[in-house]
């Protein structure tokens, strides 16, 4: 046996050892994620009441039924509002808060104050969503809730039933989600701003650029990577949102706050239409993967453009 082949074989043996390290992870992933994912698709091709009841082959029937289901379409329309409440609004507010805390409060008032404020904004993020939902549910209560008591105190005689009427339930839920989310972009943007070269700002200031102009021309482009990370993670979270809906409105009133995840849950356990619920979940998965891919592609393209620009 010549020396090179022995070296090669040794290298291959060394590689083979690493498969052992991979084994537990791959087995666990198969058992807990890949097999259930496959089973879910299998369920979605059947009519099934769940449990021990018989399964009836239905082909793509569940998916065809989805096309004519106004509740299904409504749930995805609400997903767009969830994205507004969990991505768009918090990112914009978080960007302004981070810039103000970093530029203004941190430099002119003191870094202690800035980090205290930052911790305050972040507080709702560490609260279990169920706890937050229960407190907000009571705040919004039409009769004894804090919000309506306050409104009556200042002279509004018949304040709305926030979570109980179709017109106000969605905005109320969105408000809670904005409150929950704000801290996340604020904290990430604040650390991103520390990365930006202060010389850029000094040069711009010498050129007479005002605060807003510097913000627009330097801050926003410099922290673009973080913006993409926030957009990606929060959009996925917004598409998956379940717990706030469950504790605040249960999708009601009149399905006005129904979201896809809650709709599939409803089909699984309330309506005993497991196949149909599985189809909703599968479509939701496809939407999430598609949206994540689009955001990732946009990010890669932007990064490439930046490299070429420099």
């Amino acid at each position, binding site marked *: 046996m010549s020396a090179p082949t022995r070296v090669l074989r040794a290298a291959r043996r060394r590689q083979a050892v690493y498969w052992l390290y991979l084994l537990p992870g791959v087995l666990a992933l198969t058992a807990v994620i890949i097999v259930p994912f496959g089973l879910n698709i299998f369920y979605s091709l059947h009519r099934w009441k769940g449990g021990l009841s018989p399964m009836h082959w239905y082909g793509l029937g569940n998916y065809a039924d989805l096309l004519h289901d106004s509740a299904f379409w409504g749930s995805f329309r609400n997903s767009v509002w969830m994205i507004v409440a969990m991505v768009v609004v918090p990112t914009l507010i978080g960007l302004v808060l981070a810039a103000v805390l970093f530029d203004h409060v941190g430099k002119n008032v003191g870094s202690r104050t800035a980090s205290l404020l930052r911790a305050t904004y972040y*507080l709702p993020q*560490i609260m279990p969503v169920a706890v937050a939902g229960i407190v907000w549910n009571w705040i919004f209560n039409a009769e004894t809730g804090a919000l309506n008591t306050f409104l009556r105190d200042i002279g509004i005689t018949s304040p709305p039933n926030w979570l109980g009427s179709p017109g106000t339930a969605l905005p109320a839920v969105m408000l809670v989600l904005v409150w929950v989310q704000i801290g996340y972009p604020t904290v990430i943007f604040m650390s991103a701003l520390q990365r930006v070269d202060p010389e850029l700002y000094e040069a711009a200031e010498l050129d007479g650029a005002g605060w807003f102009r510097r913000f627009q021309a330097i801050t926003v482009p410099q922290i673009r990577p973080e913006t993409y990370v926030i957009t990606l993670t929060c959009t996925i979270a917004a598409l998956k949102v379940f717990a706030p809906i469950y504790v605040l409105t249960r999708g009601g009133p009149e399905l006005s706050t129904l979201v896809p995840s809650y709709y599939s849950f409803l089909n699984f356990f309330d309506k005993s239409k497991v196949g149909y619920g599985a189809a909703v979940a599968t479509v939701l998965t496809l939407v999430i993967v598609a949206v994540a891919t689009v955001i990732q592609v946009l990010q890669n393209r932007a990064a490439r453009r930046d490299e070429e620009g420099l």
Partner: protein
Amino acid sequence: MATLTQARTRPVVAPTRTQDRHHRGALRWVVLAGCVVVALLMLAPFGLMVMNAFKSPADYSTHGPLTLPSSLYFSGLAKFWSYVDFPVKLWNSIWSSAAVAVLGTLLSLLTAFAIGVGKVKGRVWLVAVFLLANMLPQEVLLYPLYTMAQKVGLNNSPWSIVVIFTVIQAAFGTYLLASVLGTFPKALLEAAQLDGANSWRVLWRVVFPIVRPTLSVLMIFFFIWTWNEFFIPLVMLTTPDSQTVPIALASLQGDRMLDVPTLNAGALVSLVPTLMFFLFFQRTLTRGVTAGAVK
């Protein structure tokens, strides 16, 4: 950069010094006031919760939710504590989250070691699968996991939560750690191999000490994420003695027996463990949030 050059060519109106300073001084306080107002709005729900957690039901029904309690009332806390059998839920939450934190981190390390250091074949695909697994909505796994747990007798046992979330969190951990270990200094690995260290020794004597800070951040994240998890525990844990804190609190909703002060006391008590945890690990955490973002 184009906008910058534009700004340069534009004639600049320089305000007189003193006027500028005055203006700035006033503006500074306006901006600070704005930040404080936002902070107060963020804190308002917490304030309302604390205010009403220590108020007697009679006080609440006569004075409403917006006044301070006329005398401190602790029976709401006591009532919640015994009503939901809180120590049981607290213990379930603590041990299942801790188990997920430890096992999830360990599993992430082993898998990421094979991918990042071992450079096994097809690692790009493996990372993609782990990333995808993390992206899946839990609804798509829920019903199969529910029937599987029933078959193996893990329904209504926090162990089902441990198994499921160890894998879900490890999917994220693997994705993150694999990219960290992919850039692990080669010289260190080669030196260890020359010394005759096998892969197991390399993992624990060379790799582990260096990535320990990242691992501790992962552990804290896994603990908090599992603690706050709602959807799968809600379905899996239906008996009172198996439930975790968030599920126990949510199950109180719509319970007519419960008064508002007790509900607020319950919310407060359920928040305290995460709050303590957060304050304790705040430094590590903010570092972790930052590290994750710039990646």
